């Protein structure tokens, strides 16, 4: 009885783990889409098209930092192709460089975590968004 429970629990855990990784491509694309949405908000504020809001501004950097933490775990060997991924083979050839690029993105986002004024926001936002093109240049390919 107890053993069955253990086995079941084990199965459940295993299942949960596979569920989380069920579709790493869709998951990483969703994360990046979120980063894109946050960037749209940020660009509007930086340009003055939207009023500066400290809470929103800090939220943008949190979205970046969270994505930077999770992203590197979503590239298992089995997800090189499929699902209209734009991930470049270079990700798997240069795992160290890829992870370092996310570490830098996370650090730059961290620098903006406590912004309280527009000037500070602009500077931190400018620095953090330099990472987008820099990483996409090397680790992404349109197919």
């Amino acid at each position: 009885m107890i053993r069955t429970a253990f086995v079941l629990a084990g199965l459940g855990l295993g299942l949960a783990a596979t569920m989380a990784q069920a579709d790493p491509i869709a998951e990483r694309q969703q994360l990046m889409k979120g980063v894109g949405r946050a960037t749209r908000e940020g660009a509007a504020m930086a340009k003055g098209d939207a009023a500066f809001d400290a809470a929103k501004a800090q939220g943008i950097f949190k979205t970046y930092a969270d994505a930077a933490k999770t992203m590197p775990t979503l590239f298992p060997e089995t997800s090189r192709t499929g699902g209209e991924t734009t991930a470049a083979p270079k990700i798997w050839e240069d795992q160290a460089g890829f992870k370092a690029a996310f570490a830098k993105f996370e650090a730059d986002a961290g620098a903006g975590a406590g912004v309280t004024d527009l000037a500070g926001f602009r500077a931190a936002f400018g620095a953090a968004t330099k990472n987008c093109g820099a990483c996409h240049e090397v680790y992404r390919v349109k197919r």
Partner: protein
Amino acid sequence: MLLLRRLLVTLVLLAAVALGGFYLLTDPRLVSPAPEVGALPAPDIENGKVLFAAGGCASCHATPGQDDRTRLGGGLALASAFGTFHAPNISPHTRDGIGNWGIQDFVDAMAAGVGRQGEHLYPAFPYTSYRLMPPKALADLFAYIRTLPPVEGRAPAHELRFPFNIRRLVGGWKLLFFEGGSFRPDPARSEAWNRGAYLVNGPGHCAECHSSRNGFGAIVPATRFAGGPDPEGKGFVPNITQDEADGLGKWSKEEIAELLKTGFTPSFDSVGGPMAEVVRNMAQLSDADRAAMAEYLKSLPAVATPPRPQAK
């Protein structure tokens, strides 16, 4: 017997004429005469710097593996369907670069694809687009390059498969596919449109990546700008005509200009691959120049993306 001999002689003669004709027809000065430079005003080095950025010269000619984009030592390997090209040293080094070149030599290369020894240059060097720059603009560009540091060392020789390793054959290619001549403005269009058309088709050489090519590596005119496989074989370059489905049909002028300045698309994706460096270069142009390019791109007819080659 006599008849046979006559036939043979005729054939040999014909072959000789054909060969001679081929030789003549592929003579670099004949196939693609460069414009005469003549007398020019003092060069405008600032304009040369803008053209250097717009032309993305550093993307191919900067020494790989170091960050200084003004060290034009060459050596970058460019994969292609014909083999591997190695971008040459175009720094002002007198022995290894183009430090000994005169302005006419430079114009020959940029506007006619003819090297200093009078040889044909391969169109992997996009002179097919750069030729639209008039001699005055090329003189400005040349003057700017001469202010950059001389870099020692030569690039390895190209590694091309037979028969592509025969430079003379480029003469035949030029006869079929190369059109010379500087940019001619369209008086019916606005000044901004003309400036945009010049920047996009000339120094910007956008079509060199954003088009598909035929078996000889020449851009297919009907699908110019409608996207195509990356020339280096990595992925697919998107359609930038006014096609609604895949192209820029739904983009505003401001959104196109924004992309050229910051790399962000209207959905706040950030362009990657080789376009990332194009954006860093275009960011050095003026807002007016980027707006002009957007103006021109918005005037392109919608062309559907040609079928993609099967992914490997």
